[in-house]
């Protein structure tokens, strides 16, 4: 095995090996301090390995790993955030109960969420996607409060539903091919000609939209992300939703345009971008606001991919990954920031809040930040028509949401006693914040195809600034939406669904009643006789 292949395999196996290591008592006590090491092989792989590096596992492990450009971009960002959040977690959770369990779920989720970015065969993708989805339950429900348990339940139900959608889609995708476990690329190449094309695409979009949190499948996100401990929220919101992004990138046939499906995805994305911002403004807790912001941002990525699918433009994949990288670092940084700001008071509070504000406005596209670069890079893909204007208006929505977030943060931390967060938490936060501001600059020329300077004409700046100004004006004019805060419960439409729960519970109750009756002797006897007659009649007619 070549060193490159070995590194790729290590990226996947290192966290799994650490999780297995927790069986040993000696290792178990050390593992929290080592969490930051687990994603480092993946980070190195993303930085050093050329696109196209691939490795097949020997039989019977049917799995092929391969690195491509969108995968590498997302892998780098994800591994970086996992590492920083791991260091943060070691400090944040020190001495709290259930730490070993948390570390095991952390490592398993880590392995799944990074593996899904580099796996190239369908069964392997499903395996790692499932690993990430199910293990994350341990992170969501870790705190064992009522809210965490409810969030965990909702998360699990929807995650399993998403798994079912995807399994059916994958099975249909692979059904026509000679290899029972084809490479994703081969299966997707055959997709446009498949007789089950529309069903497959619909199921794929449903399954991955659930993971990304597109409205109305977003309900688990504003529950699960705030319920988890701070560092886990950062990776859930920053990395795990990207499993949906990479899914769409890998499985949608960008080479062959599908205008209808592209339009559906783009419209769903735009509606999600607006909806996420609008619902988020009505929230009071900082972490919930950030979760709704993730919903909104993933809507933009979906719109971008929809535009690419409609046009049959494969470059949408790289751009979505670039936007995803920006979101990974900024959103991860913001969640860590909430934790650090809550622990900082007195003179320490303002520098933290200032940096938090900078990161927050980066999401809205503040010039010179990664958000601005990401928005400029994706502009050409969106064209200059309705979609482009719709996305610009979404940036206004993001601005409003982030101003709301900053206002809430200032208010919530006002009474903090003078103190500062431990360096084990400050340092990871600072590193992620710095990376989010710097790394996107480095990748911008390769992805946008233009030089950095080209983006800095007055016209481009104006494109970024007018939506933000609009957002600021609306925010001020409406009195900071003070009347709205707390109006919408976390999980919005889920609450409506839960109100219908008693009515839904009638069906299982009816089934239980029927079961009781079927298990009476006379009924069972009649059923048996009925079966004899049914089968006998059928056989005689068939003969």
């Amino acid at each position, binding site marked *: 095995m070549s060193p490159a292949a070995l590194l790729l395999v290590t990226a996947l196996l290192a966290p799994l090996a650490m999780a297995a290591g927790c069986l040993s008592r000696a290792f178990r006590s050390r593992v929290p301090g080592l969490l930051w090491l687990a994603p480092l092989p993946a980070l190195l792989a993303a930085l050093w390995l050329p696109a196209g590096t691939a490795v097949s596992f020997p*039989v*019977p*492990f*049917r799995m092929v790993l391969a690195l491509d450009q969108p995968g590498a971009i997302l892998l780098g960002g994800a591994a970086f955030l996992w590492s920083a959040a791991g260091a943060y977690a070691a400090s944040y959770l020190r001495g709290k*109960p*259930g730490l070993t*369990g948390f570390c095991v779920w952390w490592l398993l989720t880590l392995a799944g969420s990074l593996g899904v970015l580099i796996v190239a065969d369908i*069964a392997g993708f*499903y*395996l790692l996607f*499932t690993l990430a989805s*199910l293990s994350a339950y*341990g992170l969501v*429900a870790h705190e*064992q409060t009522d809210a965490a*348990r409810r969030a*965990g*339940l909702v998360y*699990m*139900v929807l995650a*399993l*539903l998403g*798994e*079912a959608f995807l*399994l*059916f889609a994958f*099975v*249909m995708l*692979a*059904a026509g091919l000679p290899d*029972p*476990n084809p490479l994703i690329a081969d299966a997707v190449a055959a997709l446009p000609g498949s007789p*089950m094309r529309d069903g497959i695409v619909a199921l794929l979009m449903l399954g991955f939209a659930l993971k990304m949190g597109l409205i109305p499948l977003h309900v688990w996100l504003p529950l699960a992300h705030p319920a988890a401990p701070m560092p886990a929220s950062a990776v859930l919101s920053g990395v795990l939703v990207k499993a949906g992004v990479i899914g769409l990138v890998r499985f949608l046939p960008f080479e062959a345009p599908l205008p209808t499906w592209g339009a559906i995805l783009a419209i769903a994305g735009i509606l999600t971008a607006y909806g996420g911002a609008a619902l988020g403004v009505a929230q009071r807790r900082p972490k919930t606001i950030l979760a709704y912001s993730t919903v909104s941002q993933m809507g933009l990525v979906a719109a971008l991919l929809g535009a690419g699918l409609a046009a049959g433009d494969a470059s949408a994949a790289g751009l979505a990954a670039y936007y995803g990288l920006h979101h990974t670092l900024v959103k991860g940084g913001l969640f860590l920031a909430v934790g650090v700001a809550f622990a900082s008071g007195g003179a320490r509070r303002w520098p933290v809040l200032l940096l938090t504000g900078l990161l927050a406005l980066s999401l809205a596209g503040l010039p010179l930040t990664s958000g601005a670069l990401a928005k400029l890079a994706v502009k050409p893909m969106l064209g200059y028509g309705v979609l482009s204007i719709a996305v610009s208006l979404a940036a206004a929505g993001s601005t409003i949401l982030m101003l709301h977030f900053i206002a809430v943060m200032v208010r919530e931390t006002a009474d903090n006693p003078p103190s500062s967060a431990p360096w084990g938490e400050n340092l990871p936060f600072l590193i992620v914040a710095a990376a989010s501001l710097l790394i996107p600059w480095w990748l911008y020329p390769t992805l946008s195809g233009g030089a950095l300077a080209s983006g800095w004409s007055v016209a481009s700046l104006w494109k970024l600034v007018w939506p933000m100004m609009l957002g600021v004006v609306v925010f001020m004019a409406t009195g900071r939406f003070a009347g709205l805060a707390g109006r919408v419960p976390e999980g919005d439409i889920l609450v409506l669904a839960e109100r219908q729960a008693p009515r839904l519970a009638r*069906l*299982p109750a009816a*089934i*239980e009643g*029927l*079961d009781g009756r*079927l*298990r*009476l*002797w006379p009924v*069972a*006897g009649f*059923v*048996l006789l009925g*079966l*004899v*007659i*049914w*089968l*006998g009649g*059928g*056989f*005689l*007619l*068939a*003969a």
Partner: protein
Amino acid sequence: MTPAYAATPGGLLLVLAVMLPAAAALVMLVLGPRHTRVVALIALALGVVVALATGLQLVRSQAALIYVLGNWQPPLGVALRADGLSVMMLAVTAVVMAATGLFARELFGLDLATADGRLATSFWILLMGLWSGLNLVFVSQDLFNLYVALELLTFAAVPLVCLDGRGETMAAALRYLMFALLGSMLYLLGAGLLYGAYGTLDIRLIASASHHGPAMAIALALMIPGLLAKAALFPLHLWLPPAHAGAPAAASAVLSALVIKAPVFLILRLVADIAPPGSAAVAGQVLAVLGAASILFCSVMALRQERLKLMIAYSTVAQIGYLFIVFPLAGVGDGTTPWGTIAWTGGALQLTSHALAKAAMFMAAGIVAEAVGHDRIRDLGGFGRVLPLTATTFGLAGLSLMGIPPSGGFIAKCLLLTAAAIGGHLWLALTILAGGLLAGGYVFRVMDRALATPAQRLALQRPIPLRLEIIPLVLAVLAVALGFLPLAPFGLLQIGRPDIALAVLP
């Protein structure tokens, strides 16, 4: 005339597979209670060796193993025959039996006073009876011989249910006995009809008859429901939940993992080997409808159970349903050969992985009940912290039941789903997916309790030795390890198929 059956080398192994447990039971009676455990463990070890040798012989010869008792050809004599599917069943039975034996030894050993008591002694003898009956079902070619095997199974399984002698389990056992007898009667009626019409009870000879009259239709219409009653497929599951939930953990494991598979195996043989194509297609449709109903209905019931063992028992009825939806997916009765299809392989894998996973799960539930003193799911909060290995076992077995990769259950579900997608059976595909979701629900309910961190640590009534926890864990790991099998039809299942007679009846 060439004989219908020619004995093959290694055929004697089939006799050994049936006779070894029976002989062990006799030796136990002779030697008395103090030696039953040792005899049983020796028999289990030998039985595993026999199953292994049978498998090796089959793979080496690439043909079905045949033994003709006393060299009397059917229709006068009785033939034993093991093809790929039978050998697979023999092997699974041996593995689960061996694990159950080891588990029971540890479980009874927890209490030195009862280690060689009445309960333990009866258990070992009945276990041997069960094993002999099971092996006979898997290798016999004669419908009356199969009837004897089924009766042996029933009469060994019923006392296992009420081994502890509580009123509640006695009632459950009686229910089981009555319904199983009803099933036996129907089966016997059908077999009698066939004997009258064909003058033979040999499956191969009946199948190779040139003309099938209405007697065949009526006989099958009696035998299949009779066997369904013994397999407890919905809506004939009235006896299973209380019986399997009430039995001691070791007994529940074999009952749920193996015993109900015997009638299922026979239905498979009746439909795939004897029934004329038209009838087979009808039977396949009816069985698939019942199977799908079983999956959905009983999964919901499992979700609603308050007690862990009842939940697992309902899950068994649901999981059995998957075996019946194989018929239309594999194209049984439409003129093609079903055994080379992915659906057939999927069904066989579902059978195997369910046997391993369900045995592991029942043993895990037994450990929990033993340690905590009850099995009310609601009050099990935090059992993962006091019994981490058992919780892991439950989780791994649950993965296989839910069909989550990597596990045997996943491969099975994936193959069945692929067959449904290719064959255009959308309703079956949706049933499989919905069944997976519901299974996710009931497994999750327990895992949620396992992972919970209650304020008060769950109190253990007695310490559980590591050896006891390891055995189900091994079974669960095996169920998961099946997930590394290739996603393609197995060659093994095609050995000895189809079962064609060398000579046609005069």
